[in-house]
């Protein structure tokens, strides 16, 4: 990959990945408010807002992070399976994206319940978004740390590639 294109790809990957991290932090804040607030309208608003934020911000950023990460690794000397830290980031990204996709249904159900006046605030409150967003935040912080520190360690495949030259 040419240096200018490589920098563009790196900028896209960092933007998408850090944006994903920030969006998840925002969802976590909303989820905590939903669990802790005494105000009924606030609790309803929080669960209704989480669904479009997940669809239009969190999910696109996660997919953009995955796609730009693949471009970044396959288009540079790092490769996709040569270094343990790249493999670990790929696993984290895939796991977080798949869980997010599966969790979209739950967010939809929570938003539907929140829009129904008959559902009480106590029935609406759910620790599940706090747990999921919290775990996602830890995973994404781990991925960011791996990307910055790039801990050493070459996979057996990476060693074979290096031996071949």
């Amino acid at each position, binding site marked *: 990959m040419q240096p200018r294109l490589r920098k563009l790809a790196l900028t896209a990957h960092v933007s998408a990945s850090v944006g994903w991290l920030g969006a998840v932090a925002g969802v976590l804040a909303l989820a905590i408010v939903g669990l802790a607030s005494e105000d009924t309208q606030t609790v309803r608003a929080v669960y209704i807002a989480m669904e479009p934020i997940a669809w239009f911000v969190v999910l696109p950023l996660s997919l953009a992070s995955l796609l730009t990460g693949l471009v970044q690794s396959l288009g540079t000397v790092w490769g996709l399976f040569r270094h343990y830290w790249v493999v670990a980031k790929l696993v984290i990204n895939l796991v977080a994206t798949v869980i997010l996709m*599966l*969790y979209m*249904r*739950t967010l939809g*159900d929570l938003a539907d319940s929140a829009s129904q006046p008959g559902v009480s605030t106590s029935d609406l409150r*759910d620790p*599940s978004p706090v747990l999921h967003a919290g775990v996602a935040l830890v995973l994404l912080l781990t991925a960011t740390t791996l990307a910055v520190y790039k801990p*050493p360690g070459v996979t057996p495949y990476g060693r074979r590639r290096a031996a071949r030259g």
Partner: protein
Amino acid sequence: MLPPRADHATPTWVKVFAVVGALLIVAVVVLLVIGGHGPGRHA
């Protein structure tokens, strides 16, 4: 001096990463099996 194949050993952080990942997977599977977790729980 390090043994000749020391650089071929799997780094400690990778082992820790794998163990933590495996524990998380087991925890999720247990939660799914006992029915207190998973998509559609609110349906």
